[in-house]
């Protein structure tokens, strides 16, 4: 049986109001997994490493149509950088056994390193391609994808099994279906800790993270050299005098 799986990193937490959201790129990854299932059959498993309440987000993913989900949660996972995260996810994938494609969002909107997808592929010993905007052809042993590159596009063929990371442009995610919402009531979600996935303790969480934040600071900010108030017309005149000083010519429209 062919199987497509999806990966997602821990969620974003915004400060005041403490709203947790699924990383937007990952919703597109879920959607792509569902479309792959529509094209080729198989089953879609969503995988996430996060704090316990992430299970609520996985229910949303089930509601979209994923067959099942796995939440990796353990105090020992806390403080993980992208290497420790890739390692942890890889141990879960090993436990889940075979896969054809792992679809990840390109990056998270908080860390935005885009490192977990490629790092995970390396741990699993499979190839990866990033920035996919379209899966053009999909066969049992390869996927042909269009990717966004620095100044245009590229079409690449990758042997399966593989990891692909996707851009938001790849699809428009669906709303939950009636069946999906029904499934949400008794969702097929497994909750695993470090022991469940046989994770080596010195490779997860803070201990498994070679990078560490040594300080955070607000960048030096001086006051603006000049603050201009007044009516819009007064400000417009001031702006024009700045253009004059910079010898900027205005053109006919």
């Amino acid at each position, binding site marked *: 049986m062919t199987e497509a799986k999806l990966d997602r990193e821990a969620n974003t937490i915004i400060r005041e109001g403490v709203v947790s959201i699924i990383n937007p790129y990952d919703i597109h990854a879920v959607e792509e997994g569902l479309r792959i299932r529509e094209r080729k059959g198989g089953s879609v498993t969503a995988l996430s490493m996060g704090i316990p309440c992430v299970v609520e987000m996985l229910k949303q993913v089930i509601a979209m149509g994923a067959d099942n989900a796995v939440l990796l949660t353990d105090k020992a996972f806390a403080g993980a950088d992208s290497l420790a995260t890739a390692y942890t996810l890889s141990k879960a994938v090993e436990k889940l056994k075979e896969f054809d494609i792992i679809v990840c969002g390109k990056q998270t909107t908080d860390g935005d390193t885009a490192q977990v997808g490629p790092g995970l592929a390396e741990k699993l010993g499979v190839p990866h391609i*990033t920035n996919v905007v379209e899966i053009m052809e999909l066969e049992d042993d390869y996927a042909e994808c269009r990717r966004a*590159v620095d100044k245009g596009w590229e079409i690449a063929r990758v042997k399966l099994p593989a990891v692909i990371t996707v851009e938001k442009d790849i699809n428009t995610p669906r709303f939950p279906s009636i069946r999906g919402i029904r499934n949400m009531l008794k969702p097929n979600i497994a909750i695993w800790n470090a022991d469940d996935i046989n994770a080596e303790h010195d490779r997860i969480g803070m201990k498994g993270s070679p990078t560490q934040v040594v300080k955070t600071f607000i960048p030096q900010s001086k006051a603006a050299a000049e*603050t201009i*108030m007044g009516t819009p017309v007064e400000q417009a005149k001031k702006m024009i005098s700045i253009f004059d000083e910079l010898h*900027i010519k*205005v053109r006919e429209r």
Partner: protein
Amino acid sequence: MRIVNRISIVREKCIGCGVCKNKCPFGSIKIENKKAEIMDSCSLCRACANVCKFGAILVEGEDAAFNTSDRHEGIWVFAELKGGTVPRVVLELVTEAKKLASTLDTEVSAILPGYNVGQAAQTLIKFGVDRVYIVDHPALKNFSNDTYAKIIIDMVRSYKPDIFLFGATVCGRSLAPRISSALNTGLTADCTQLDIDPQKRILLQTRPAFGGELMATIICPHSKPQMATVRPGIFEAVQPLHINKGKIIRPEVCIPDSRIEILKCFEDAAEGFDITKAEIIVAAGRGMGHRENLLLVEELAAILGGVVGATRAIVDEGWIERCHQVGQSGSTVSPKLYIACGISGAIQHMVGLKSSSVIVAINKDADAPIMRIANYAFVGDAIEIIRALINEIKSLKQNQAEF
């Protein structure tokens, strides 16, 4: 024995000042009964522990278990090629690597896989690279993160560099994490600043973090090489006046088959537009309200002979194409004039425009971050001000025409 990583408040020392709560990027600290309390959503980033003046935050747990008993030496730069030539970002990295190398009293090497790379090697040597490691083979004509990663991983294991830098291009961002994952070492993406810690002699990697309001300095103290990616335009490429004769080394490597095949590449014809070359940029952010208001920004840009720039926020909203995006995940620009309209100034955006000669910011909020880095901060409604500006310019032109 299970290792528990834990952060906790030492209640006797805590006075409930709330500085930690304000510092927490995740809203994971609350103050109750005049004592701080750390909630389960804590991600152990330690931002709070770094600021507590009272020693009231205790971090327990062990640091990374990686050991580097082997001696690692030298700074490597991955020499990505574009159409057979060395792109500017690689030369920017080489220039920066030379500065770091001089502090560490070590050498800079370029890693150059590809096909017919002789010319590229000479360019790198002209920019002061001490050694170029070349792997020249027809199979490597096109970039493949599959083969390139395997070759480079083998080379790192053989030659043991201390620091390894990559441009944060599409290739670099795909290749570097594969390599760091194989080597179980740390990688910091999109650094805006690199320094050497004078005591520990390790790389200090600074980048915007946590949703854009903070800068974070990151280290990789226990494993090697210390890896980092840097966006184009962050550093300057400077050809040194005097260089030592660079050495070319051709290591024997095994070239594996690639599981990835590039079938076709094409440049987006519609995007012949290159914002990094623009002299005048009028940029819009969410403060412009609606997509329709972009027409005002476009008109102003056209009148000034400039181009339109954008924040990530409005690109994500679909108001304008990605090629207009300025910032950490867009382009780094260096115009004569940058006018920021309705942009609050997230760090990731400001990183892209800090090389502008003159920055004009228009925002309702006098305290918005962008107002602090601007040369001229106009406090007011961007839409009204731009309209007034366009009208003023038009009536000036009319007056001129009447003479």
